[in-house]
């Protein structure tokens, strides 16, 4: 045993790894192949790929790309740009700061995957490869070329054993990304603005995809493109830029969020937008409980329900058991948040004495108790409060300062439909929640939450009243969910008990909320929002997954936990928790003055 593992090491160390690709080609030819292939891929999008417009998106027109062809075009252009940057063309150097080949590989793979997915989808859906026009074949071959070229490029770590290692080296991010040159503040802000606009465009495109195939292709391109940018080190550079201009970026983010409904012509997509926002806001509230204080809450959706039911009861709906009461929105929002807060304290006070798994089980139970109780408070099996399974229908639309949310409004030539109105209200609520989250996290109370999460015994020994601090986190999270619930009651016209369960096939439910937080990245602001957007869009767009969506999520979560346990957007603390690379992680300014190393040597 020992011999088999030991022998490769001495061999590999003295001989420096030969710089050659997996596929034997001269490196100049390989590079040219990537560039030419990228351009060819982009060009092939202009050909007709199939003869009939039965395949969605109409890929039959020569000279103009449609649907999935746009995605192929984008990926081709991206690959070509990276290839040009690798040639050292002036003005493109910023694309490849580390001069590594991984972005080329990933860009090529993005184009390849989306093109081949389209070609295969055409063949399968229309029944056979005969349905492919010559353009389809050309695209398939053209998109394969840059992949071959990219894998023929020299790779530093290919000298070691095994194909698996070699493949890993092709998509690995270099250890050191050269630092960006210092730029003027207005340049930084311009870059952030441009990136925000591109981001809004990409996000809007994803929401507006009309059919499942397009969404799958979109995911392929986005995932590979982001991965390529990550390995190129551009994401690191951008996050450094964001860190330097934090408030400006936040303002741009909200400007982009507000701009979204103005880009929409169909209110259906604004509806998706508002649902994502509600889901995301609740996930962010859960992030306080789970991400900061480390309390695993499996019944969190109940607080959304409490907020929604409270708002419905005081909305003036004729089916409400207190139908005479009609509070203005600010009052009902406060009432919803307050009711959730009270429930949070009531549920938290007995359960927060438990730790870990026990807390998770008890909160799971309380979540179900809420749904069952609401189901039974119909006047027959219990007091008449919630109308039981029928819920409270026909909740009137909101009116704030004479602005009726139920009607379409024309603002500066843009028409804002009903859902767009609610979307803008939700942006405001989300801004409040983001503000609460960031401010609470960076304070005495936020530090004590993190301390409790890290080591509860040590935290209490440092004078933190664990129970009190945890109860504050629990109640704050509940109040934020209740606030979101008050809007959601008005958006959906009616409130019924069924969505407020532990697990279901559509968000929001407790399992999805938790998945959004874990998937996106615990302890970050952007993470849960991204996770919520993904988890809402996937079942919405991929109609064929509908029945198996829970299975798909299970698989996705397992894969994520295996390969990126800290979530898509990683918090620095979390990342260190899961990867033992922490020893290298030292702040820049102190690396030169490391005194203890000297004192130790003297010992």
């Amino acid at each position, binding site marked *: 045993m020992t011999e088999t593992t030991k022998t490769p090491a001495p061999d590999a160390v003295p001989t420096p790894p030969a710089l050659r690709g997996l596929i034997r080609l001269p490196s100049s030819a390989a590079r040219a192949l990537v560039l030419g292939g990228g351009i060819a891929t982009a060009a092939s999008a202009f050909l007709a790929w199939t003869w009939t417009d039965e395949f969605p998106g109409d890929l039959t027109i020569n000279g103009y790309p449609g649907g999935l062809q746009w995605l192929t075009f984008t990926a081709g252009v991206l690959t070509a740009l990276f290839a040009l940057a690798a040639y050292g063309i002036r003005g493109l150097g910023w694309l490849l700061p580390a001069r590594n080949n991984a972005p080329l590989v990933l860009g090529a793979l993005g184009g390849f995957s989306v093109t081949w997915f389209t070609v295969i989808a055409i063949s399968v859906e229309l029944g056979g490869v005969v349905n492919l026009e010559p353009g389809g074949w050309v695209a398939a071959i053209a998109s394969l070329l840059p992949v071959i070229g990219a894998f023929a490029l020299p790779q530093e770590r290919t000298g070691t054993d095994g194909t698996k290692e070699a493949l890993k080296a092709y998509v690995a991010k270099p250890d050191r990304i050269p630092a960006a040159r210092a730029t003027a503040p207005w340049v930084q802000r311009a870059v952030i603005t441009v990136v925000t606009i591109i981001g809004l465009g990409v996000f809007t495109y994803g929401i507006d995809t009309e059919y499942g195939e397009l969404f799958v292709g979109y995911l392929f391109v986005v995932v590979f493109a982001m991965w390529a940018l990550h390995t190129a080190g551009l994401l690191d550079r951008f996050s450094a830029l964001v860190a330097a201009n934090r408030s400006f970026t936040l303002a741009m983010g909200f400007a982009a969020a507000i701009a979204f409904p103005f880009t929409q012509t169909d209110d259906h997509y604004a509806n998706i937008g508002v649902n994502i926002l509600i889901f995301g806001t609740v996930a962010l509230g859960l992030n306080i409980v789970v991400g900061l204080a480390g309390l695993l809450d499996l019944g969190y959706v109940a607080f959304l329900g409490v907020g929604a039911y409270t708002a419905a009861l005081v909305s003036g709906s004729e089916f409400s058991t207190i139908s005479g009461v009609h509070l203005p929105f600010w009052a009902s929002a406060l009432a919803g948040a307050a009711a959730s807060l009270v429930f949070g304290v009531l549920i938290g006070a007995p359960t927060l004495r438990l730790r870990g798994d026990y807390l998770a089980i008890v909160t799971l139970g309380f979540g179900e108790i809420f749904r069952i109780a609401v189901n039974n408070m119909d006047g027959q099996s219990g007091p008449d409060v919630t109308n039981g399974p029928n819920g409270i229908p026909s909740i009137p639309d909101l009116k704030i300062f004479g602005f009726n949310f139920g009607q379409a409004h024309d603002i500066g030539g843009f028409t804002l439909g009903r859902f767009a109105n609610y979307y803008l209200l939700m942006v405001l609520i989300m801004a409040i929640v983001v*503000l*609460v989250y960031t*401010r*609470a996290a*960076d*304070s*005495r*109370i*936020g*530090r*004590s939450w*993190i*301390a409790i999460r*890290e*080591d509860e*015994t*040590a*935290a*209490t*020994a*440092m*004078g*933190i*009243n*664990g129970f009190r601090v945890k109860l*504050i986190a629990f109640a*704050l999270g509940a109040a934020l969910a209740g606030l979101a619930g008050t809007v959601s009651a008005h958006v959906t016209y009616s409130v019924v008990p069924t969505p407020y369960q532990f697990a279901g096939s559509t968000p929001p439910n407790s399992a999805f909320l938790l998945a959004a937080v874990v998937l996106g990245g615990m302890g970050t602001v952007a993470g849960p929002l991204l996770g919520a957007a993904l988890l809402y869009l996937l079942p919405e767009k991929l109609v064929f997954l509908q029945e198996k969506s829970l299975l798909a999520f299970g698989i996705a979560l397992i894969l994520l936990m295996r390969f990126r346990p800290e979530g898509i957007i990683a918090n620095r*603390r*979390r990342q*260190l*928790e899961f990867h033992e690379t*922490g*020893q290298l*992680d*030292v*702040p820049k300014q*102190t690396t030169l*003055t490391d*005194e*203890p190393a000297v*004192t*130790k040597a*003297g*010992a």
Partner: protein
Amino acid sequence: MRFGGLTAVRSVDFTVNAGEIVGLIGPNGAGKTTFFNCLTGLYVPTEGTVSYKGTVLPPKPHLVTQAGIARTFQNIRLFANMTVLENVLVGRHTRTKEGLWSALLRGPGFKKAEHASEERAMELLEFIGLAHKRDHLARNLPYGEQRKLEIARALASEPGLLLLDEPTAGMNPQETRATEELVFAIRDKGIAVLLIEHDMRFVFNLSDRVAVLVQGEKLVEGTSEVVQADERVIAAYLGEPFEGDPGEAEAAEVEAAEAAADATSSTKGEAK
């Protein structure tokens, strides 16, 4: 303090005066850490009370810290994924009172309190010599510095009595000497120190008084000389001679047997 049928610490009467360094020693399993846990409220004593400056302390860790007793742990319990500065700031928790509302509203009071906390924390980091590492994560510090940081975190709660549970465990002689200096410096600030330690030279150099705990009971208490001369202490650490003590004849027999065994198994020993 009893755990079911096991009595871990029994009727230990113990006083630490202001500005005093007191050592607590005893063989492994004597109940030293249990005694500490009783003092700091991590365990609720089955019988007896802990009083500080004349008031009886409730057995709640955060109230004990609030009252002015801070502690470190035998196995370092820092907040590993927080920075050095944040660790010390957490220690300031009991001496600040900004709640959720002030954090959300961010009034002038909040900024002032945060600023004052940070200043105080930096002072402490200067004191223990870790100021230059304020933004490092606690988990990335070398072992000795983690120990120091834990002391700084405890000092941040402005205690009148500091409990150190084996502060030099796992340290090299040089680091141990540095810790000795540190404990003296802490005493010079007017803070009384009670420490558990196995390094006898360290304890006897440092302590004004030493108490010995054996099998949950206090055996002897007094100055270093008194304790060092006490026969019962030596017996507790080294054991006592017993009646069937092996004589010289038996010892020779055992040696011969061992030599024979060695001859047969020498090859095996080398392979290892």
